[in-house]
């Protein structure tokens, strides 16, 4: 895809190409979010980034030509040939989270295949961060595999877990081992609600360990697709003993941060 600039309307775009979804945010010069889109992708590629960008632009009747600067982030950030520049998801999540709430000091991001914790200073700059991106433990992919093993839809898991009285102890965090463990728990007669609640607790413990490397301060914001699971957020709050805020659309925080960086490049306030 080739972008030719058109002078009349100028917008910037940020695309976050994750391992499971591609997200785009379109901003105008005043930092107003004009549109966003989230596209599920089978495998990280440039096509899903293009589709995500097109979907977002079409929502507000814009074309690629009107995008002055395009910044990419995420696992597949360098796959997009028509970008102006790429930034790490750490910088972009920090930027996006601070934009949503300038009081944010800590970010927990649990995405499709990685998780990270980021500490910010009072100006929204990254102080320190920790990532787990070597295995799918405790991520969206982990929950997907568990939902298949329990023969449940991913979206129904939170509601079922809310009914748990005695969460099981799930010790394995490796996706493969945890799958075997929950099959074994199921065979022992534990209810699905207790098993899922146990899984959520194991994710929360892993997140706590990620956070333990950082100077965690409130406010704590959770981003990424997994933040949409309200029950899991509740468990995280309990285990980490922290109040967690979730923005209205937690999945676009990285793309928003990328768009804000693009705006800076255009001479805006980004």
């Amino acid at each position: 895809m080739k972008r030719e600039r058109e002078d009349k309307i100028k917008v910037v775009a940020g695309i976050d190409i994750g391992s499971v979804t591609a997200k785009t945010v379109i901003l105008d010069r005043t930092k107003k979010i004009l549109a966003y889109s989230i596209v599920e992708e089978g495998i990280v590629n440039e096509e899903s980034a293009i589709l995500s960008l097109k979907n977002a632009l079409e929502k507000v009747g814009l074309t690629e030509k009107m995008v002055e600067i395009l910044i990419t982030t995420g696992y597949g950030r360098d796959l997009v040939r028509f970008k102006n520049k790429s930034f790490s998801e750490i910088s972009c999540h920090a930027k996006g989270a601070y934009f949503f709430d300038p009081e944010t000091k800590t970010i927990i991001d649990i995405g499709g295949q990685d998780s990270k914790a980021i500490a910010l200073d009072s100006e929204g700059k990254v102080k320190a961060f920790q990532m787990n991106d070597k295995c799918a433990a405790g991520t969206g992919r982990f929950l997907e595999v568990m939902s298949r093993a329990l023969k449940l839809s991913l979206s129904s898991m939170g509601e079922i877990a809310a009914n748990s009285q005695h969460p099981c102890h799930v010790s394995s965090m490796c996706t493969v081992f945890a799958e075997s463990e929950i099959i074994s728990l199921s065979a022992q007669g534990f209810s699905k609600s207790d098993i899922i609640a146990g899984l959520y607790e194991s994710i929360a413990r892993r997140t706590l360990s990620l956070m333990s490397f950082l100077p965690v301060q409130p406010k704590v914001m959770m981003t990424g697709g997994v933040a949409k699971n309200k029950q899991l957020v509740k468990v995280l709050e309990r285990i980490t003993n922290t109040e967690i805020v979730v923005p209205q659309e937690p999945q676009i925080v990285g793309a928003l941060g990328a768009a804000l960086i693009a705006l800076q490049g255009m001479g805006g306030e980004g």
Partner: protein
Amino acid sequence: MGETNRLKSLSSLGKEVNEFYMKYKRAGEEKKTICRIMGYPLPHVILRAHDVYYMFLPSYAATSAARHVVGRLHQVAEEKGLLREVCSYVRANVGCAFSAEAGIAGADPMYSMPKPDFIVVTESSCSMTFNWGDAERRIFNVPLFVVHSPYVWDEADEKDAIAEVTRQLREFISFLEDITHRRFDWDKYKRTMALAKETAGLRMNTMDQACQTIPSPATLFDWTSLLAMINYLIGLPEGRDVALNVREEVLQKIERKEGAVVPEKYRLYWDGIMIWPYLGKLAQKCAALNANVIWSRYSTFSFWESPEMIDLENPLEGNAIQVVRLHFNRNIDWLIENITRQCQRYHIDGLLIHANLTCRTMAGPQLEIMDAVSRRLGIPAVYFEGDMTDETLISESQIDTRLQALIETIEARKRG
């Protein structure tokens, strides 16, 4: 986008390393005395002075990894029952020991190494080293000699530790005389030590001067390549010549204000053993971000790091000092203090912490080092997992993201 401008004077080392292994193989064929060493490059000069050919096993693993032929060796070792969690240097060498049995000896010149006459372990704080030596003793059914360096908790321990290692080295010389049925030539040893002292001194001084200079004329990727000079050529005129050539090139580059990364905008510290299969690629990735990895405790606090303390009238003690003062042998406070001081001296902007998954000795104190040094200097740090030789434990995208995020964080702080 920055580019690399690495030291040209190191290019001869590849040829020297090839010749080293050819000589070792030839010595085996001619039934000369040969041995395998694991641990620290401590007995090299003693062996050289006694005309014993050696193979230094950590270096063998690193060289095999840099040449991308280590995977098959790991596989052979794993077929023999070694778990993937075991030190990947050990797996590479056990794979090499079984290369003939596995039918791969002819597949690469690095695979076919002759059976040693004995094995030497120079063990500091890595417990794996002794087990490794013992495993090889059983595999080859040859004698094993262990030099153990006591852990140095504080400065007061150092003197005792040096005396103890010196005593063990004296025993080692008797062991050598028994095995070879030849008297040890102390005069030759002194001459070899003099060359070793000069070579190691040149290395340390050149590194220190280069690391202080902005832009630095060299990079950690040069210094790690230069380790071949210690591991393969220490005590030989050829080793000193390499050190002299490197020094000359470094001084010329300083004079011309020529950096190893052009342009050099960020100066990084590296903690951990190098990722040998990834050396060139990593150098390019850093340079592309205008980052120069300036130094590491691995290259600066190891490998004959205290040559100035060698008294040529008492060479055995000088030899012992080189293992006692090794950073592996030091407590965490010493590490934090010294890494902080060197980072200040070398104007470091950020810390890259590489946790070697199969080297617990190196990885053990890393989180504390990262936390303390980062806080004291107010500079950002990133931590990532990898391995010194096992490519299956290395994730390129993981390194890319952390490296980019570190540079972005440094840049954001610089902008204020």
